[in-house]
């Protein structure tokens, strides 16, 4: 085991008007592992993601990043502390080009974004790195395309590129392969296995073959609670999981 937990939650809870979407979740994500969150729809995976990244304040519980209490911090602070995320529903700047997305992401850790009296040409300092990242996710040819003109799979790739541009310690990917064709799925799996070096990846994923190929640890959520946690092979064989979810999903593949 790569050892210590870099991201952990204790008793994490979130209520939505009487509905408890996340219910006392304890989670320990070990550093430099790939940790998958699976579970049926409505199990609270995306809510958990939003809690971990500050997009939702928890109703109860505590979140620690690298031993530091980050409970209730706003998303931009969590991001600056080294947690980058992608969104389940592609979330880009429709009118900006792919390269501009990556440049904005690269710029965010500097103070350059505040320089309203300087020329935007200063952002050229990020051009080379942006080109590298776009090349990495297979978008080199589409660097100038406005995001809204990209095909779905390409948008997902761009999401990944801008998350990587933040050079995060922890990368949270919300269904990185959702809606992708087989070829794109393979490419994404390959990409994640490349970029995981030196990083921690937490991913929500429905595609069990993707989970099997990438994840060191799998946490199964059901109705906002942790049902089972362990290595993929073990979780997959667990009776409760088969009943709850995995059996049906596996049979479908």
């Amino acid at each position: 085991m790569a050892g210590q937990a870099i991201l952990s939650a204790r008793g994490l809870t979130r209520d939505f008007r009487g509905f408890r979407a996340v219910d006392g979740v304890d989670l320990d994500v070990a550093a430099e592992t790939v940790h998958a969150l699976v579970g049926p729809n409505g199990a609270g995976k995306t809510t958990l993601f939003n809690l971990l990244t500050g997009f939702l304040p928890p109703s109860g519980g505590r979140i620690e990043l690298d031993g530091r209490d980050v409970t209730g911090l706003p998303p931009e602070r969590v991001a600056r502390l080294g947690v980058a995320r992608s969104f389940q529903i592609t979330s880009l700047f429709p009118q900006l080009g792919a390269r501009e997305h990556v440049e904005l992401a690269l710029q965010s850790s500097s103070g350059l974004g505040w320089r309203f009296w300087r020329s935007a040409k200063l952002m050229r300092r990020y051009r080379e790195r942006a080109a590298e990242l776009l090349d990495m996710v297979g978008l080199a040819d589409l660097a100038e395309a406005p995001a809204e003109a990209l095909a779905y799979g390409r948008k997902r790739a761009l999401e990944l590129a801008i998350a990587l541009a933040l050079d995060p310690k922890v990368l949270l990917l919300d269904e990185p392969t959702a809606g992708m064709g087989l070829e794109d799925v393979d490419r994404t799996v390959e990409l994640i296995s490349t970029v995981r070096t030196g990083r921690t990846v937490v991913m929500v994923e429905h595609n069990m073959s993707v989970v099997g190929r990438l994840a060191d640890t799998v946490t199964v959520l059901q109705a906002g609670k942790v049902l089972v946690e362990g290595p993929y092979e073990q979780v997959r064989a667990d009776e409760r999981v088969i009943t709850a979810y995995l059996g049906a999903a596996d049979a479908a593949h």
Partner: protein
Amino acid sequence: MTERTERSEGREGMPGQHGMSATVDTKAPPARSGLLAVARAPGWVRYALLAVGLLVALWLPNGLYPAVAVDILCWALFAVSVDLLLGFTGLMSFGHAAFWGTSAYLTGLVAIHAGLPFPAAVLAGALGAALLALPIGYLAVKRTGIYFAMVTLAFAQMVYYVANEWRSVTQGENGLQGVPRAFFGADLTDDYYFYYAILPIVLLGLFAAWRIVHSPFGRVLVGIRDNPARARALGYPVHRYKLTAFVLSGFLAGLGGGLFAVGHRFVSLDVLHWTTSGKAVIVVVLGGIGTLWGGVLGAALVVRLEDWLSFSGFEAIGLVTGGIFVLVVLLFRRGLWGTVAHLLRRRGAARRE
């Protein structure tokens, strides 16, 4: 700017480029399409446009009543300040009269009591407006959409009532009279010469707006406008960026309002009235949201039209400007500048194919 030209090649050839304008129309303000149409034009076109603009600005008081030309300059700054928020940050301020008017009063008071040269008084007014924008913006930027508009309107109304009640300072309904145009002994009583005295200040203000839009900060603003959640996930403190944009916008609005006060040598409560905020938004929408120069064009047209209507003794000016506003919104959603830029761009794209 050159950067834009470079990238244009790749973008024009993109599939889906034409479909884009349709979605842009309904969803986000058509900012980039308008802005880029000019920005991606060849360098000589942009310089030619700039030269024409400057020539028109230099000629203006010869073709119009100088007093009207002065008003156009002031309103151009005001419109651009509103567009900075509306077109480039995605915030619709319906209370910008608070900054225009506060600066008008401050400028008037400083000019009357301190006897400073008018640019110093205007600067003091604009700084005062920016200072006022800080608390108002702080509270407003936490809201979005119509709620942001309502909060700004509410604060502007508060400022209006304070000015109305605080007669010892603002002279209430009588207004501040006799705002001097002091400028190192130069005689600027003639509006014709006053126009040329304020032109450099206005151009400086317009340049500042252009610089802000085309700065790294401006890029972040556009990102925030299009997808604030994503901007936050990238680590950008969205509220603070919006607040900074709001204060900068308040300063520019104040610059216009201060010049307006000196231009009229008189400040009345009208400068703080909500209809003044509304007119600023109308001017921007007419000219083209997110085009920057559209606001200048809109200001010229609206101010000229209103002057013409009132000169011909027409009472219901609002009926005409309102009617035109509705027509433009229905027929040319990109506004005047935005529509022209869009047509030019389409022609340019067609020629290349």
